[in-house]
Every structure is written in structure tokens, then in C-alpha cells.
């Protein structure tokens, strides 16, 4: 029997599997670039261990959550909109209703919760990957030792940075899945309508992520 808990776990697993590889890939290259650009910018005037400061702050506060969020809008959000849109136009959602299932609690709620719970997990891994890549770049390509890089990492670090990053990610997760569900559910027509819903879900959730990003910065920082 597919209980409600099983549905949630299934959605969470799918979201994680769908998004972790791409999120880690993006974070790794972001970490490399951040380290290189920092060292380029700091020449002479600022001590080189500030590379660690910049990688850590930028990754955790901004690029980890936002780049991951935007990528997942294109992956998870599009996926949800296409899947639910197809279910709508092929009358599978009507079929659920005639079998006495509530499509909101059966299809929508597990996806929203999965987004809310899994986005922070994925972003946490992305943040770690970004910092790790920054560190590897610093010790291999820059004239920096591990103790110096770590000194930079810890210099302005505050635990709140991590909280901020994860709160932001959870809100992105909710937005991406909610928008995906909304456009999927309200699809009207045939195959090309599913395509339209998918595109709209990606565009709208990407824009909302950027707006929310500014909102959290204004409210929490």
C-alpha cells in the first residue's frame, strides 16, 4: 500500500537524485572561479588569505542557494509542471478524483514538502562542494597554504550565515515546487499546452527566486 509517508519519501528521493549531481557540478566550478577571481582582485593590496573569506561568504550567502535554486527551477519545477500537466490533459487527475482520492493531498502536498525539506539539503552539499573546490584551487593554483585558506574561511564566518543559506533554500524549494504544481494543475488543452505550462513554471519560479533572494537579504541581513 502506497501510504502518504511513502509518497513523500518517494518524492524526496527523486528530488535528491534529480538534483544533487547537477548542483554539485555547478558548485564545484563556482568555487574554482571564486577562488581565482578573488586572488586576481586582491593582488597586493589585500592579504591573499582573504580568498578563503570571499569563497566562504559568497558561496554560502548567495551563490550556493541561488545558483542551485535556479538550476532546480529548470529541473525540478519543469519536471513537476510537465508531469502534472500531462496527468491533467490525459485525465489522470480526474481519474484520481473518481477513485475518491484528493489530488491536492495525493499529488501536490508531497511535492511541496519534498521541496521544502530537500532543497536545503541539496544546497548544504553544494555549499560544502563550493568551499572544497575553492580550497583545492587555492592550494594547487594559487600561492596559498591550507592553514592560510582555513584562516580566511574562519575570519568572518558566523553560524548565522548557514542558517540564512538554508532558510533561503527552503523558501526556494517551496516556490519552485508550488509554481510547478500550479502550472501543471491548471494546464488546459493538449501536448503543446503541457509545453507552455512547463516553460511558464521555469520562468516564473526563476523570477520569484531572485525576488525572494533580495527579500531575505533585506529582511534578515
Amino acid at each position, binding site marked *: 500500500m502506497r501510504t502518504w509517508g511513502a509518497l513523500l519519501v518517494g518524492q524526496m528521493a527523486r528530488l535528491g537524485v534529480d538534483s544533487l549531481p547537477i548542483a554539485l557540478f555547478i558548485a564545484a566550478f563556482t568555487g574554482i572561479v571564486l577562488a581565482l577571481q578573488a586572488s586576481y582582485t586582491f593582488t597586493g593590496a589585500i592579504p591573499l588569505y582573504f580568498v578563503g573569506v570571499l569563497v566562504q561568504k559568497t558561496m554560502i550567502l548567495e551563490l550556493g542557494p541561488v545558483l542551485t535554486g535556479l538550476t532546480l527551477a529548470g529541473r525540478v519545477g519543469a519536471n513537476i509542471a510537465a508531469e502534472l500537466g500531462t496527468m491533467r490533459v490525459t485525465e489522470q487527475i*480526474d*481519474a484520481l478524483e*473518481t*477513485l475518491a482520492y484528493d489530488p491536492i493531498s495525493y499529488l501536490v502536498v508531497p511535492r511541496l514538502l519534498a521541496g521544502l525539506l530537500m532543497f536545503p539539503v541539496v544546497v548544504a552539499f553544494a555549499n560544502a562542494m563550493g568551499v572544497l573546490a575553492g580550497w583545492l584551487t587555492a592550494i594547487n593554483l594559487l600561492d596559498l597554504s591550507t592553514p592560510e585558506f582555513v584562516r580566511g574561511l574562519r575570519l568572518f564566518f558566523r553560524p548565522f550565515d548557514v542558517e540564512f543559506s538554508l532558510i533561503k533554500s527552503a523558501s526556494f524549494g517551496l516556490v519552485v515546487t508550488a509554481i510547478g504544481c500550479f502550472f501543471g494543475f491548471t494546464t488546459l488543452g493538449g501536448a503543446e499546452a503541457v509545453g507552455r505550462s512547463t516553460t511558464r513554471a521555469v520562468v516564473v519560479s526563476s523570477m520569484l527566486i531572485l525576488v525572494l533572494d533580495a527579500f531575505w537579504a533585506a529582511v534578515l541581513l
Partner: protein
Amino acid sequence: MIELRGVRKAFGRKVVLEDVTLEVRDGETLAVIGYSGVGKSVLLKTIVGLLHPDAGSVRVDGAEVPALRRAELYELRRRIGYVFQFAALFDSMTVFDNVAMGLRRIGTLAPDEIERRVTDALERVEMAGYEARYPAELSGGQRKRVGLARAVATRPKYLLYDEPTTGLDPVTTTVIDRLIQKMAEELKVTSVVITHDMTSAFRIADRIAMLYHGRIRFVGTPEETGATMDPVVRGFIEGRPELAQGAA
């Protein structure tokens, strides 16, 4: 008994059902015919509460469907099996899970009882042995049969069929028609069958109703339908729309 009185349904400014009054008697098979896009599916969906009429009354076993609360509506839906035009099977699930969905929702059935009922439903539609397949691996006719099995698995009192034979070859059409008759006889269900296949309608129906311009234009037995002089009905049956030209 299913009773529709003065049912009206519009989408935006487009009025699909204007004033539909129709009765489905217990135990009968009623075929509803009509041109594509007249609102036959809309009519069927108002009966199970998937669509809300703008005006009028839809009663099933005396209960006013649009006024039911969610729990009552779900309770009612257990008594109604709905066979969708393109089967609407859940493509992420196997045939077994598709048919078991409605049974699992009941919540009180043991797994072996569910399995027994799924097997029984699949046997009735001659699809036993396909339990582990996915809908994508089935032909159109096989999908419709699984859709029918899913609808009858909960032993409903009513079966609503939305164009069960549209798009099927003549042989498969006969197979499906026989299944519809068999369900009516063996399970004593009351059926509403939407179709624009007149051969099917004459074969399976106790009565035939025609939906035209938002109203029920005609209701009668197959004999009465065959003999009617109404030009709109004649034009539809004979595939000669020009007969309806100038008809009120």
C-alpha cells in the same frame, strides 16, 4: 437513479449545456449520442461532481451532487465507476496498481482481498496475466479494458463510459461492446455510455438520448430511435447533417 434537471454549464461566455433534463433508470443502459464538442463529456463529469453546473439539479440516488461535502462526494464516487475516453491509466503504475487504486482507498480491505478483487476485475475484462505491465506497453483496446477493470473493481452501482469505442477497430469495438453488456448483466450495473458510434448504441442500449445544442433533443428505445422522423436525429444516425438543415 440519476436525474438531471435544467442543468446549465458554461465556460466563460461559451454555453455548453443550456438546459439538460435527463433520467437514467436503475438497471438500464442509456447511450448518449451527439456530435463532437456538444458537451457529452461535460455532462458525464457533472454527474460525478468533477464539474459543477451553473444552474439546475444533478441527483444520484436522491443526493444533490453539487451540494455534497467532500467526504460525501468521495463516498458517492465509490458507487460510480468512470471509464475515461483514453483510459486515463496512471502511467507511473503497473496494471495491477492501477486497478487496485480504488480498492486501496477504501482502507478496510486486506492485501489478499485486494489482490483477489484485482484478479477478478482483470479476468472480467480478459486482461488476466497483464498485472505487471505498464500502460505504455498496452494497445489502445487493452488500455480501455484495464480502465474498465479499474472502474468495476470497487463494484460500483453505476458505470459511466466516455466514448469507450472511439478510435478502436471494428473487432475491438465489438469486444468492448460485449464487455459493456456483460457488466450490465453480471454486475447489474446501471450504465451511461457516451458514443457517436450508432452501431454500438443500437447494440448495447436500452434507451438512446441525443444531446444537441445544449439540450436533450430526443430520448427513446433503439426501435423508437430507428423510427423517429426528427430530422436532427435522422441526420446524425444516417450521417447526413443536411437533413437537420432548417430544423428548429
